[in-house]
């Protein structure tokens, strides 16, 4: 897009890369470095930018002492499941909004979308008794269902946005070939919509993955705790302030998801580019 042949252009470009790059990546570097410092080096007023002694002690203690693996697993299960449910619901709703006409279609869609502004904390107050009534309090299914709150509306919108761009001719062709509406959707539309679906899945996933509020409230058993509260309760809380451990744990819990994202981000960008948001 830009012509970088001039010196000023090069300078501005380089300067911006450094500035934003530093902002984005320094914290990550710092997290890694801090996790590798022994406590004596960590708790210093003048920090060292390159640790003098690398130690895996924080990692060692989190492996042996904490329940991090369990929290991580719980988070992956609940976030994964809720993102899946969310995506499935949103796929149908988005397609319905995009390709069918019926009374109330647009107001319903807009209302759903606006609902994304309802304060989650407020909803939680009433979700809690609902979950209790269904016996879902302190259960993974309960948490998973509650997580629908976070992203369903936006997920519906994103897929609506994408499906609107799927050419009608393609659907007509399948109809002429004798496919029913559901058949068309399942065998034609969904297979060609993988990138946007991945995008929506990841977007939903991230909301649940980040959640602190719901899981802190709806889950009390430690064996079902997710990483948000898990980290907070293990490392920085009323009785503890273990920064080195917190950094190491942060890295460990981030690793699988970062790896997965590295793999999926191509689809993610593709999905957005394909019109998941427009």
């Amino acid at each position, binding site marked *: *897009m*830009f*012509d*970088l042949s001039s010196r000023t252009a090069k300078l501005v470009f380089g300067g911006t890369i450094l500035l934003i790059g530093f902002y984005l990546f320094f*914290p*990550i570097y*710092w*997290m890694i470095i801090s996790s590798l410092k022994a406590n004596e080096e*960590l708790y210093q*007023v003048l*920090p060292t930018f390159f640790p003098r002694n690398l130690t895996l002690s924080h990692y060692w203690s989190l492996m042996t002492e904490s329940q991090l693996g369990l929290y991580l697993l719980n*988070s992956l299960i609940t976030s994964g499941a809720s993102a899946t449910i969310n995506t499935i*619901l949103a796929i*149908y709703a988005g397609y*319905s909004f995009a390709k*069918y006409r*019926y009374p109330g*279609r647009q107001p319903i*869609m*807009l209302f*759903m979308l*606006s*609902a*994304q*502004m*309802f*304060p*989650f*904390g407020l*909803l*939680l107050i*009433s979700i809690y008794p*609902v979950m209790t009534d269904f016996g879902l309090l302190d259960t993974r299914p309960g948490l998973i269902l*509650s997580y*629908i709150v976070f992203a*369903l*509306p936006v997920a519906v919108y994103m897929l609506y*946005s994408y499906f*609107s761009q799927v050419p009608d001719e393609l659907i007509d062709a399948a109809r002429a070939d004798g496919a029913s*509406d559901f058949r068309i959707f399942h065998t034609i539309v969904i297979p060609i919509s993988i990138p946007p679906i991945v995008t929506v899945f990841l977007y939903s996933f*991230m909301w649940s993955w*980040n959640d*602190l*509020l719901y899981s802190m*409230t709806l889950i009390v058993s430690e064996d079902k705790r997710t990483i*948000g509260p898990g*980290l907070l309760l293990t490392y920085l809380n009323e009785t503890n302030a273990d*920064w080195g451990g*917190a950094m190491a744990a*942060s890295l460990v819990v*981030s690793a699988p*998801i*970062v790896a997965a*994202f590295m793999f999926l*981000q191509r689809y993610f*960008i593709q999905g*957005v*580019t394909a019109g998941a*948001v*427009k």
Partner: protein
Amino acid sequence: MTDVMQAPGRLDYPVSPHARKGGLQAAQRRIGMLMLAPAAIAFSIIILYPFVQALGLSFFEDTLQTIEPTFIGLANFKAILTDPETWQSFGITVVYVGGATIGTVVLGLGWALILNQPFRGRRVIRALTIMPWVVPSTVSAFVWAWIFNSRFGVINGVLLELELIDVPQAWLSTPEGALAAVILTRIWRSIPLFMAFFLAGLQNVDQEQIDAARVDGAGNSAILRDHLLPHLRPVLIVVVVLGVIGGLQDFDTIFALTGGGPVRATSVLSISVYRKAFEQWDIGMASAMGVLWVATLLPPAYFYLRMLVKGR
């Protein structure tokens, strides 16, 4: 239609045995509604019903003392609206959401522009950029809290080293510092998502249009101002919606980073509602606060979104 078919002078044929009743359009309508149903049901149970219930609760006094709520009309709203803390919360929310959204738009756009430019190592940087977004929000709060830490934080360390300050500063203990920190953290976390949207927008730019502008004599800044920004307008609109939603609903980072303090400097609405409900046990008041929030946001949101959906 039937009357047409019976119109005189028309050839009369037997109706094909495959013909279906009700015609095409009715069938389509039914299928459309059927597909919407699961999401609509989930939405009603998990979002709408709790909201309606909260709406009801906002007219009750429902605190720890009153296990059975008592109806008190608009008293909660009156109490909230006359409480300076409410207004403070609204103010802080505006600063927080506004600051974070603007900051993220600017930096996310800048980063997208950079990553849209071919250079060596671009792929790697693009892949790494996703990181701040995918680390759990608790983690990002940890990292920034650690960076801002008054005793062992790197900011203090660097400033001390450079002798710009002579004693460590407690950044998170000043209202400005704490607000800045939560905003910086929020921006840091959302840059990747915004970047992805902008990048996607940029990848849809018609290269011929940019070429045409170059031939017309446009330099880099003119390309940005006259072509890229107008092109990105729709993306910008969406990104702002997502940014505002994300900012308003953000609880995790702030809660883990400052807990809403010092004093109440970072008590945005989501934190205030939580506090009211789960620390002070005043459900009625918390509901009223939430209802007020929705009442403020819903109408503009609805119209903005309608514009978004229609303007496509």
